[in-house]
């Protein structure tokens, strides 16, 4: 399937679902009566259909849904009563839309039936004109027996001619059974709870298999060991399969955006450059699904409201081309998605005015609200600053839908804006169900998992009482000249015990603050499946969830942010402008990991390093002429500098693991010396590939290695993915 076909396919599956839902909701009205919530829900569904139809340029679909939406917005605002006439007409809209989808699916375009009558009827209803023609004369809604209904007569008031609109039939004869939907048949929707259960069971199966393998190893029965081997293989494959059913990289979603942005920018006469980061961030299927619509809304909003027209930008001294930046990452035990633009920003005064106009806040309250609170009003239902209602935005759905959708999966939405400089919207989704790498740490004999996203580095200290200093009563550690606040995890968790002299400081970063969590030891990194804590334990800030470790025991997942706030660290500096923070970032010295290879000092930028590992020399195997080791169930190709590296007599191989283009690569070194943070000037003295150049780091001349280009020079398969 080409990209476009795939997009269309998804659009169809989703379209049918939305129409089904719409139909259910509409019919529900007649049975239960309307509530404000259900009107909003219907409104949003229609809005979504319209929006997606807009991307694809399905004008007929867009036109009809647009009018229907207008009608519904009257109902939502209480100007119109939801009469059965309106419901009937809206059901007619559903039928027409369905017919259009059918026709699209058959490859026959939108079909060419005339919808004027339907559109007119909708407009009449919206204007509140009493419908003269008898409602009963309107073609009976085929809702009650959809299976029998051919796609569909347009319900029009009596004076107009009723056209049997069946565009699909003109292209391909409808298959027997008629309602068959090839698009939605190719995939199955499964209850997430069932997938969770399967995942749990797969994990348990792995544990049981491990036990089995251990006891069979001591047994000489050939049949038994054969069967065990098969179980071993099947278990691994099954676990992988079950995992796959849940996880998807965000790139699936990212890939759709360039088109959306392009079309919208063209429509609005704006120049937009889209930057996408963190493509490989794996998200849970259900989360991916849940953020799809909000993300699209935000992107549309940023282009429509955020970025200015080229003329305006030039006047403001900015390049004509606006930048829209999307970044996804696992951070501090959460999935963070940032949507930032360098557009006009949000004007709090304007929001305040609009909010008053729309009656969202009282005048008295509006004067008392802080700027941040006011900016947050953009998430209020019914809020819109667009002066004109357009197809793109301005109806006041969008931001409240974004908020509702994100909150429904337990996430948060934050907005930061500076007038004239841009807006950043941060979506944080709890990592419930997400699989993340975590550090296993030991405190007071108990193991805990600490999500690696928050971890900056580990520092081993020997002689805690000597090395740790105090400011007033607060323990601090001198980390490369900076005072690092420390939190003793054992004390925080209420353990009273004599402290050992050796400990590990896990340096974590929460927003702009770094601090050190002191633990007894660090065992390992492990990919963990995060599970939510039960109701009774949710309130404890120190934990982000729980997980089951490789040996089957339960471990609590620590929440660095929560630990910081429990320890009374003031981590929130939200009010600061994002741009200012970024500028500070640039001024910050670069951190290098300094190593020895064949008695030469080399360094790599710390930011590029995924982790440090040690392997037994005996574990090195060869594949396709390259040294590899097995690492996390995959092959890790090893790179050596020059012809040396790892050539010492030691039986341990120190390897620096990089992740490039989604693949891991290992750099073999003799010894890791230190982490140095310095302003470094790199000079290119040689043209050896694999080097950024040379620099003076820590007082010694040091080669700065460019692992990506080194890998390319060695002809590793990652080469194409890099370019």
């Amino acid at each position: 399937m080409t990209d476009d076909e795939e997009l269309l396919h998804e659009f169809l599956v989703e379209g049918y679902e939305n129409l089904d839902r719409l139909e259910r909701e509409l019919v529900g009205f007649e049975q239960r009566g309307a509530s404000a919530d259900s009107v909003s829900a219907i409104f949003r569904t229609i809005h979504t259909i319209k929006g997606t139809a807009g991307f694809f340029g399905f004008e007929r679909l867009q036109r009809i849904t647009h009018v229907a939406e207008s009608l519904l917005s009257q109902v939502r605002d209480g100007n119109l009563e939801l009469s059965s006439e309106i419901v009937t007409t809206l059901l007619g809209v559903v039928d027409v839309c369905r017919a259009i989808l059918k026709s699209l699916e058959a490859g026959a375009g939108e079909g060419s039936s005339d919808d004027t009558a339907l559109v007119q009827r909708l407009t009449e209803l919206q204007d509140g004109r009493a419908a003269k023609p008898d409602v009963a004369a309107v073609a009976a809604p085929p809702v009650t027996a959809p299976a029998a209904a051919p796609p569909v007569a347009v319900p029009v008031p009596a004076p107009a001619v009723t056209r049997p609109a069946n565009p699909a039939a003109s292209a391909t004869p409808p298959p027997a059974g008629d309602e068959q939907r090839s698009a939605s048949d190719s995939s199955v929707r499964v209850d997430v709870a069932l997938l969770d259960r399967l995942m749990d069971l797969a994990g348990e199966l792995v544990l049981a298999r491990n036990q089995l393998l251990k006891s069979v190893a001591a047994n000489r029965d050939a049949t038994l060991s054969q069967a065990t081997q098969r179980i071993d293989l099947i278990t691994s494959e099954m676990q992988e399969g079950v995992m796959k059913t849940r996880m998807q990289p965000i790139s699936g979603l990212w890939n759709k955006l360039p088109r959306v942005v392009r079309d919208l920018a063209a429509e609005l006469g704006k120049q937009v450059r889209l930057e996408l980061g963190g493509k490989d961030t794996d998200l849970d299927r259900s989360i991916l699904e849940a953020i799809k619509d909000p993300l699209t809304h935000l992107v549309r909003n940023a282009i429509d409201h955020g970025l200015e027209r080229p003329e305006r930008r030039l006047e403001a001294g900015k390049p004509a081309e606006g930048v829209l930046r999307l970044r996804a990452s696992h951070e501090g035990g959460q999935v963070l998605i940032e949507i930032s633009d360098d557009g006009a920003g949000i004007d709090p005064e304007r929001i305040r005015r609009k909010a008053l106009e729309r009656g969202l806040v009282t005048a008295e309250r509006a004067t008392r609200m802080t700027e941040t609170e006011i900016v947050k009003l953009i998430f209020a239902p019914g809020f819109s600053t667009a002066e004109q209602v357009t197809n793109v935005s301005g109806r006041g759905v969008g931001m409240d839908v974004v908020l509702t959708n994100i909150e429904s999966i337990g996430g948060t939405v934050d907005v930061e804006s500076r007038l004239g400089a841009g807006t950043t919207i941060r979506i944080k989704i709890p990592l419930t169900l997400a699989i993340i790498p975590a550090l296993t740490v030991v405190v007071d004999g108990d193991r805990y998992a600490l999500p690696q996203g928050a971890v900056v580095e580990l520092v081993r200290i020997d002689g805690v009482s000597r090395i740790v200093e105090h400011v007033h009563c607060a323990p601090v550690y001198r980390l490369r000249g900076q005072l690092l606040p420390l939190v003793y995890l054992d004390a925080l968790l209420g353990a009273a015990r004599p402290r050992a002299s050796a400990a590990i400081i896990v340096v974590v970063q929460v927003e702009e603050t770094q601090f050190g969590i002191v633990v007894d030891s660090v065992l390992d990194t492990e990919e963990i499946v995060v599970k939510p804590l039960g109701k009774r334990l949710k309130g404890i800030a120190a934990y982000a969830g729980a997980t089951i470790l490789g040996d089957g025991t339960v471990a609590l997942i620590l929440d660095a942010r929560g630990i910081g706030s429990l320890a009374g660290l003031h981590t929130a500096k939200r009010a600061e402008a994002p741009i200012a923070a970024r500028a500070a970032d640039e001024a910050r010295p670069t951190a290098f990991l300094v190593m020895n290879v064949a008695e030469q000092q080399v360094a790599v930028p710390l930011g590029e390093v995924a982790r440090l590992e040690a392997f037994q020399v005996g574990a090195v195997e060869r594949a396709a002429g390259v040294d590899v080791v097995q690492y996390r169930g995959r092959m890790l190709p090893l790179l050596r500098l020059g012809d040396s590296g790892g050539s010492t007599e030691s039986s341990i191989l120190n390897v620096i693991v990089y992740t490039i283009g989604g693949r891991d690569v290992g750099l073999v070194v003799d010894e890791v010396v230190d982490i140095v943070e310095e302003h470094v000037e790199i000079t290119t003295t040689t043209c050896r590939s694999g080097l950024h150049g040379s620099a003076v780091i820590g007082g010694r001349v040091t080669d700065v290695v460019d692992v990506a280009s080194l890998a390319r020079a060695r002809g590793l398969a990652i080469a194409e993915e890099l370019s």
Partner: protein
Amino acid sequence: MTVSGQYCTFQIGDMTLGVNALAVQEIIRAQPTTRVPLAEPAIAGLINLRGQIVTAIELRCRLRLPPRPADARPMNVVVRTPDGVFSLLVDRICDVIDVSETAFDRPPENVAPDIRALIVGAFKLPDRLLLVLDTDRLVRADTGAGDLS
């Protein structure tokens, strides 16, 4: 509400307690338990129930009874509640018994109010009393000082 029916019974010390058998998912032996620092005292920890993480509640603590002797291994009564699946730690498991409403009495007035809230009532069996616990309330947070929420 009808109180007759089947009850899964167990012992703590020499007290016989029971929960509605329909609420019981399963009964398992002592499990490796991960303790949860900072949680209220009645939370014994987390156990791995075939891949599902279940909060274990120490009934002795919940009912303000002295702690179990160190060498005694508790049994897990795994119950389903509207708040999720929980495990109740008890001393010994007894039978599932059928009781009729005629033997039922409301909890007497001299039971401490906080404990009384956890007890549906007592069945007067020929040789002893069977206290029926309200599992839904048991697993909710203490309303006393130990409450974190």
